[in-house]
């Protein structure tokens, strides 16, 4: 069989299929690339099927797509219980042990993951209009994902979570507040048990870009969807030039809080995000670059 490298999941794929059997991206379309180099992630076609192990996944719907698994007897997936839409009674569900319950609670992360084991059907969906992004991972490949964007992963993918290291504080004394514009923790998925499939949900549209070594880019922190683990990130603070307003205004009211990401590697963003609050002066922060115009 001839193979080609899918331009979206970067895995060897089957050109005779209308969609990549690993990530669902259409095979027969030209990629949409913006002038600046962002590649639009094409939505997975309605009813497209993806294969993993002896099981397959079918994507139903285009607005808030449903991910429907047909799990074979030896295959299993895990997910947060919030995204479970329906299941057949014979699909076996069980709690998955998670470490760090208190830290996860404090960070607003789901405390409980659910394992679903075949045989049987089960379906998951998120609660935002957007796209399902499929990331097939080769053996030992790792990917970093922003919190709350994880939909599900196959059982052979290992899940860990670590501080993002991007934060700043406002206020002082009892009013001091720590902000995590990219979330307090990020998820890392590693295919330690052989090739696996990771599915994310991106609110809005998703775009991918490859950064060269040391090439950097400023993005809204909450727009980051996933990145290769080779991509580094830090905080960047930008203050506009004072155009006649009081000095203090330009010090915090009109600042921009960015995530600066550095290549090499792949990075993906989503088009729906929540800008950080920008009304109070920053009193301390994680490592950051700063620019005053």
């Amino acid at each position, binding site marked *: 069989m001839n193979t080609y490298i899918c331009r979206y999941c970067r895995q060897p794929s089957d050109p005779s299929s209308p969609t990549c059997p690993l990530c669902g991206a259409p095979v027969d379309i030209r990629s949409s690339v913006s002038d600046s180099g962002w590649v639009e992630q094409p939505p997975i076609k*309605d*009813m497209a*099927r993806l294969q993993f192990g002896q099981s*397959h996944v*079918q994507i*139903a*719907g*285009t*607005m*808030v*797509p*449903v991910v*429907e698994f*047909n799990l074979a007897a030896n295959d299993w997936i895990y997910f947060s*219980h*919030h*995204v*479970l*839409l*329906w*299941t*057949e*009674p014979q699909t076996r*569900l*069980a*709690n998955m042990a998670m470490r760090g*319950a208190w830290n996860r*609670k404090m960070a607003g992360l*789901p*405390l*409980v993951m*659910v394992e679903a084991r075949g045989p049987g*059907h089960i*379906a998951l*969906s*998120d*609660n*935002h*209009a957007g796209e399902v992004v499929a990331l097939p991972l080769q053996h030992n490949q790792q990917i970093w994902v922003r919190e709350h964007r994880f939909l599900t992963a196959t059982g052979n993918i290992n899940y860990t979570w670590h501080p993002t290291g991007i934060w700043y504080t406002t206020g002082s004394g009892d009013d001091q507040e720590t902000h995590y514009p990219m979330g307090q923790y990020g998820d890392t998925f590693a295919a330690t048990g052989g090739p696996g499939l990771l599915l994310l949900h991106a609110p809005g549209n998703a775009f991918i870009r490859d950064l060269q070594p040391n090439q950097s880019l400023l993005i809204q922190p909450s727009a980051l969807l996933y990145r290769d683990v080779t991509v580094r990130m830090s905080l960047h603070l930008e203050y506009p030039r004072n155009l006649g307003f009081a000095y203090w205004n330009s010090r915090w009211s009109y600042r921009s809080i960015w995530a600066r990401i550095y290549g090499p590697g792949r990075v993906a963003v989503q088009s729906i995000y929540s800008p950080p609050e920008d009304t109070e002066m920053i009193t301390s922060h994680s490592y950051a670059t700063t620019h005053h115009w």
Partner: protein
Amino acid sequence: MIQCQWCQAQNQPGTTSCQTCGAPLDERNKVSDSGWREAPRLRDMVEFRFSGSTCQVEGELVPVAEVALHPQDGVYFEHHVLLWKDESVPLSSLNTGGGMKRTVGGMPHIVTVANGPGRIAFSRDAPGELVVLPLHPGMELDVREHAFLVASHSIQYSFVRIKGLVNLLHGGNGMYMDRFVTTGYPGMLLLHGNGNVLERTLQPGEKILVEPGGFLYKDSTVQMQAAQMPLKTGFMRQSMYLAEMTGPGRVGIQSMYVHHHAD
């Protein structure tokens, strides 16, 4: 004649959308491997008829249902879904009965009735799909609270209490469901489903477990019961419940919902 695969109505050859429900006639049904069928995606500006009136669907992200009412026709709806109307279209209110029970259940006491002639338009406030359900005489349909958009006046509107303490406490579907019944005449019911809408027909005794927030509608023949899962969720390790649907009949779900036990 061409039979609509969604509502089973017969259509003249050459028509591209069903005259009774607006479903495209020139597209294949989209059915997943497990048997869930996507509700037909109504084309922008498609029209269909009920009684002597017509309904046109405008937009695809948050669709608007624009109804041109015949002088003898009327529709009813919850007042907050009214988008615009001709000045000449008279409105009246219909008491649903139930008084305090509906207050406690968070449901409106009064539905608003609009009578023809004239035009009136409706929409809800979330991305999603309009689900057109022509009801033949003798049909009974249960609908999740606040999912109903508009119904023709030949359909009787009532509500049913969700029975059983377990269902009430853990079912995640509130205290009441809307029930729509047709007696002597057919009618038209339009729902708004958040996200995508999928429907499955259960055989007698066949069961499916559905997240209660995703439930949209069901035939009244389908039994709904809160079922405890072998799972603990949240910091307090509370039990997780799903809605167990038992056939026979249709079940409709929506893909965008607020999880009923979000923690």
